[in-house]
């Protein structure tokens, strides 16, 4: 309940007015929106850990692969030098080198196993795929971002294709992607004069690689990529923001890959940035 009380002076009389309002609906809506934001924040944290583990796995597996293949190759070369069926004397240089090389390879494999376990541990808690309308997801995210959009003074233009097919998705994750892309677009225009801040959101249905897909596109009139190769933006730890972690777009990419879709960035016409992602209508 919300109570407001006012005092009125009328011809020597003091009057008090009281107004009570039932605001339970509004409170419920606020609580609901807060819960959705918390869900998204949770997905974001889990996905950040997943993306960091993926990045770490890749970055560390490359040198590990190099270490193990060099060590095992040397071991084979040493063995090939020895006459068939003979062993090197236990204290010989040969035997010591063999032991050491075998140790290098074994420890490399052990490190690889640690990485694999880490990956298993943070693997996104089982994704849940259900059929959803991309348009509904876009609208939902926009309502969650209503406050930021108002603050940013940006003008948003919506172009949602009618009759889009429902597509299988983990809804909270795709909301996370749309959320990241729209928020990036808003942030990209913080230095642009208010009356020039514009964002276009589009959904569409099309055929990609012979398969039906639905797509979502965000275009802004911010400064664009400033000469950065757009595909680099999706690399983990790559950021153009002063306080960024460089995870947002990497997370978007890994979410879309898990959905068997994709994401790309390109310069907008005449200027600004355009991000688009797509989802297959049917999963393989």
């Amino acid at each position, binding site marked *: 309940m919300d109570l407001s009380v006012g005092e009125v002076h009328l011809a020597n009389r003091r009057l008090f007015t009281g107004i009570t309002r039932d605001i339970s609906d509004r409170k419920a809506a606020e609580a609901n929106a807060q819960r959705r934001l918390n869900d998204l924040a949770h997905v974001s944290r889990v996905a950040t850990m997943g993306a960091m583990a993926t990045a770490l796995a890749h970055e560390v597996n490359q040198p590990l692969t190099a*270490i193990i293949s*060099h060590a095992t190759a040397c071991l084979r070369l040493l063995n090939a030098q020895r006459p068939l069926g003979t062993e090197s004397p236990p204290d010989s240089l040969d035997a010591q080198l063999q032991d050491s090389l075998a140790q290098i*390879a074994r420890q490399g494999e052990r490190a690889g196993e640690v990485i694999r376990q880490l990956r298993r541990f943070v693997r996104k808690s089982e994704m849940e795929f259900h059929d959803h309308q991309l348009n509904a997801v876009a609208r939902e995210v926009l309502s969650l971002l209503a406050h930021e959009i108002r603050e940013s003074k940006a003008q948003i233009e919506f172009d949602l294709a009618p009759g889009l097919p429902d597509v299988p998705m983990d809804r909270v994750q795709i909301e996370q992607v749309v959320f990241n892309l729209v928020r990036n677009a808003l942030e990209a225009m913080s230095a642009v004069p208010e009356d020039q801040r514009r964002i276009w959101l589009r959904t569409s249905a099309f055929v990609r690689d012979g398969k039906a897909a639905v797509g979502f596109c965000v275009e802004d009139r911010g400064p664009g990529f400033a000469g950065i190769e757009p595909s680099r933006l999706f690399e983990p730890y790559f950021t153009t923001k002063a306080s960024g972690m460089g995870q947002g777009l990497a997370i978007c990419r890994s979410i879309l*890959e898990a959905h068997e879709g994709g994401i790309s960035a390109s310069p907008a016409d005449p200027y600004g940035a355009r991000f688009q992602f797509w989802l297959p209508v049917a999963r393989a």
Partner: protein
Amino acid sequence: MTPPDSGACVYIVDDDDAVRSGLRLLLSSCGLVTQSFDSARAFLDSVAVDALGCLLLDVRMPGISGLELQERMEARGFQLPVILLTGHGDVPMAVRAMKRGAFDFIQKPFNDQYLLDRVQQATQLSVDNAERQRQQQIRRGRLAKLTSREQAVLERLVSGQANKVIASELGISERTVEVHRARVMEKMETRTLAQLIQLMADLQRE
């Protein structure tokens, strides 16, 4: 073990210098011939479509990705078996690669013996396939050298007709059928009717 003179080569495509050199050393320590490239583009620019051996391909690279290269190779008619290497091991990518006909999918860092075994098997497959195609080519050439009368006799022989039936169908003597039959066997380089039937079945299967 594939003989080094078969012209087979293990092609390596990985953007990481240290991984490439490690793989080169490992494969050559087993007597395998290697060629390595730092990008899919470099591979496509210098390797011929009829290359023999196998390709060790890193899935995730800047520019053309491993999966895209696999697609382009298929479009160009490469028959080289592809073994994909990944530092990620993510399942959807592996499924897609295998669906597109990859020979195997190996997670980095890998067990050296397993990698070498699979490389050997893939290379053997490539060499065997090429040899079978060469043999088929030779057989097709021999088939083309038959006269039209010999071809008529061959068709009927393969469908199981007796000399007598063939003779009456073609309006020639049984003795003549026998002569044609002998010429067919000689030109096709087969000794028995069973061999001839097998050979024709193989040719039709292609």
